[in-house]
């Protein structure tokens, strides 16, 4: 059905591709823009910024989010910062270097052209955000401050205390509010997308459920933009917000959009370790802490002494030992795996033995507690709230946790999926981070897509679509409405014996165990055997109280978990098929003698894009491969030593 994947990467030298592409893309004239209605699903950094920008340009925008306010999208929780190639520190940074670090950080599994464009527009983002009033950290002279982040040897990260995501999102939210006030954007909070509607193969509408009234409705548009974030909550425990879900992108996948690289998930090295059975989420401690904190475990397995009782000589600062040139700032995938290794050796700390120390004693001795408080005070406060421990006096305990997903719906250079009209931006697409995302790059990508890429590429699609927006009384809408309605009724009628959360937890544990920080073929096959059973049990035995025409949080969750139960299988299929290690995808069968990820560029330097063929193993998804062409960078074994 789908032929070879055309990434539509412009020809010409890497550094000129984006400029040339913009120069020759089709435009929509100002007087025609108001004839279009664009549906934007999601209001985080990507969705909020693009809805605002499209509104500014004069399009009519309908923006949907499941939260009660667009300001609550999960971008708000990003702590550390946003990268840009401003070179304000005069330390040798450049667009090329940011591009190179990002593509290398992604273990050479992303597209050169996309990543270069990302680095290129990064500087515009900082300008834009400052103009909106984002209160970035500054030096006494009044100029913008920077800090370092993992995987880079320059200082290029802009930040607003430990709340950079919040401040950038509020900037986008305020721009969005301005457009709501101006009447160009209509906002639909507490409204969840439950299906995509195709008319003659083009994405022309969505089906939504109003989460307050339960009303299921159809919306038509000239194009649909998904900015619905990642699928990290498939693992149940992650640093994502409770409501984050895969439903919008997964339902689009079921309507024919290709899902790319679903096995690429990022396990963040510095999170507060799990305690107890009831835990509902994991909390991140920003990677920026690794600028001043030193990671260590006892040299001796089973050492239960308090950290201050363990002398220097009996500590293993394993990141500094293994990666002397990057030290504690080694990239996320590598740091996470190293933490797992030392814990597997029985050298982990804390009650569960799944934890390592992040120690600020040296930094406090060098800089004073005040400076550390100024840099990270809010993070130390969060840590104390959750654990009851004071990290100024006792090292933090940290452990890796699911944090971000690099995979997502397949898109071409224009950020359009293989379904015409369906555009996917931010974490929801797959395109910029390869197999591992570097710190402070997610905010950059979300805002790049939203402010400076999609507004230029969307007209290329719209220009041929004037007057083609369908009415919502077409049979395609009717059918989608009926399907959503039937599914809702089915969930409510099972009336079984298990709660939605119990299924979610079981799926999460299974995936964390078999498709988490390390994977192998046998484990993935076990997961693939178990998931369909679990899914079957869900549809036979789940209990969803209440009814559909009301505010019903159990029903919301049930729908999301039902999609995770299908999506988890796709993730494992992808992980099993990608028979190499790269970035966050660590197949135990493929490692170098010293335990690093061993890529197989000959066979796997490509994107895996999966086409839906029907539920579960009865009809395995069909694999399409997009070869990654590297014209500028040389593929090397990633080394941070």
């Amino acid at each position, binding site marked *: 059905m789908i032929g070879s994947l055309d990434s539509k990467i412009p020809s010409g030298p890497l550094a000129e591709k984006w400029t040339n592409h913009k120069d020759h893309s089709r435009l929509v004239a100002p007087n025609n823009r108001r004839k279009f209605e664009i549906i934007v699903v999601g209001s985080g950094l990507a969705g909020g910024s693009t809805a605002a920008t499209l509104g500014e340009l004069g399009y009519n925008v309908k923006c949907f989010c499941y939260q009660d306010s667009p300001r*609550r999208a999960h971008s708000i929780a990003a702590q550390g910062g946003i990268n840009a190639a401003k070179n304000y520190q005069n330390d040798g940074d450049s667009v090329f270097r940011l591009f190179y670090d990002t593509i290398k950080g992604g273990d050479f599994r992303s597209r050169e052209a996309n990543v270069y464009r990302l680095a290129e527009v990064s500087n515009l983002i900082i300008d834009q955000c400052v103009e909106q*009033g984002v209160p970035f950290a500054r030096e006494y002279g009044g100029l913008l401050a920077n800090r370092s982040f993992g995987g880079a040897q320059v200082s290029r990260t802009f930040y607003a205390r430990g709340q950079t995501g919040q401040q950038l999102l509020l900037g986008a939210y305020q721009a969005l509010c301005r457009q709501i006030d101006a009447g160009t954007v209509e906002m639909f909070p507490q409204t969840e997308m439950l299906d995509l509607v195709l008319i003659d193969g083009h994405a022309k509408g969505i089906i939504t459920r109003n989460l307050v009234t339960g009303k299921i409705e159809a919306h038509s548009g000239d194009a649909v933009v998904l900015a619905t974030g990642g699928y990290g909550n498939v693992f149940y425990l992650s640093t994502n917000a409770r409501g984050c879900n895969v439903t919008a992108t997964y339902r689009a996948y079921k309507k024919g959009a290709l899902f790319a690289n679903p096995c690429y998930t990022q396990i963040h090295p510095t999170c507060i370790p799990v305690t107890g059975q009831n835990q509902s989420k994991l909390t991140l401690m920003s990677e920026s802490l690794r600028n001043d904190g030193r990671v260590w475990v006892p040299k001796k397995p089973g050492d239960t002494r308090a950290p201050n009782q363990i002398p220097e000589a009996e500590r293993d600062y394993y990141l500094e030992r293994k990666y002397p040139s990057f030290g504690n700032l080694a990239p996320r995938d590598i740091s996470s795996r190293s933490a797992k290794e030392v814990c597997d050796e029985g050298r982990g700390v804390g009650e569960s033995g799944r934890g390592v120390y992040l120690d600020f004693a040296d930094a406090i001795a060098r800089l004073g507690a005040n400076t550390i408080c100024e840099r990270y005070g809010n993070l130390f406060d969060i840590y104390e709230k959750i654990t009851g421990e004071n990290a100024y006096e006792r090292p933090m305990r940290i452990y890796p946790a699911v944090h971000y997903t690099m995979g997502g719906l397949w898109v071409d250079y224009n950020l359009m999926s293989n379904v015409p009209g369906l555009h996917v931006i931010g974490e929801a697409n797959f395109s910029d981070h390869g197999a591992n995302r570097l710190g402070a790059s997610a905010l950059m990508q979300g805002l790049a897509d939203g402010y400076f890429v999609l507004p230029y590429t969307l007209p290329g699609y719209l220009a041929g679509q004037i007057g083609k927006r369908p009415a919502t009384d077409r049979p395609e809408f009717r059918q989608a409405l009926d399907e959503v309605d039937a599914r809702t009724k089915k969930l409510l009628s099972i009336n079984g014996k298990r709660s939605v959360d119990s299924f979610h937890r079981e799926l999460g544990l299974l995936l964390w165990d078999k498709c988490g920080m390390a994977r192998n073929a046998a484990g993935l096959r076990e997961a693939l055997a178990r998931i369909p059973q679990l899914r079957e049990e869900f549809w036979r035995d789940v209990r969803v109280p209440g009814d559909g025409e009301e505010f019903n949080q159990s029903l919301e969750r049930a729908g999301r978990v039902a999609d995770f139960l299908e999506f988890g299988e796709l993730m494992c299929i992808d992980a099993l098929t990608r028979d190499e290690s790269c970035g966050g995808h660590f197949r135990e069968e493929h490692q170098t003698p010293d335990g690093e990820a061993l890529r197989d560029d000959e066979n796997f330097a490509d994107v895996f894009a999966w086409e839906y063929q029907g539920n579960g193993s009865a009809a395995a998804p069909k694999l399409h491969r997009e070869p990654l062409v590297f014209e500028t960078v040389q593929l090397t074994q990633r080394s941070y030593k």
Partner: protein
Amino acid sequence: MKFKLKVWRQKDPKTKGKLVTYEASDVSPNTSFLEMLDAVNERLVLGGEEPIAFDSDCREGICGTCSLTINGEAHGPDHPGAACELYMRRFKDGATIVVEPFRAKPFPLIKDLVVDRRALDRIVQAGGFVAARAGSAPEANSTPIPKQNADRAMEAAACIGCGACAAACPNASAMLFTAAKVSHLAFLPQGQPERTRRVLKMVTAMDGEGFGNCTNTYECEAVCPAKISASLIAKLNREYAVASLRQEAGD
């Protein structure tokens, strides 16, 4: 640990609500308050009862979704912090805990502990922004901003928009919320061109939503999870007074 919970249950805005008593047992002190409610809900669902509806999302104190009044205090006893950052070790074993929604007239109840706080969005929509069209911004370092101004702006901008200030205020005033946004933008050079118009429109919207006035009870500051200072309300009043005079003078 073991607790007796008295939870506000109300099926919908039209039905009369009441406090219903539940037991929470086998609770670890390291469980968060919301996770304790999750466990109560799990038991309710399996026993064939409707779970307690309550709002939460990020569960790390930044999204502003959670909105519980616990033992009469917005976000509970562990200030500063949102309800999702409250841990059971803060309570005495065997304690009785009363859980109610945020109560303020402009926050109509949706169900149980969930209220509608869109009035706060409408205040921001009235003018809480800088008109900076994407693509039009000058080079970021072309306008140096003294560190202390940037820091003050950041302190005001830290508001998470939860609405605890209005819920805690005997007058259901949203002045702390409004003051935080007005001040954040007034502290920065980028916020100057719309400074007059912004404060006038935001205050008008705030009044229009039915939020009350400030009578200096400082309840807002006491419960604010983002440590927004009530001194910003004085700044808001000043900004508003100056803007009104300017408007009258046709400036």
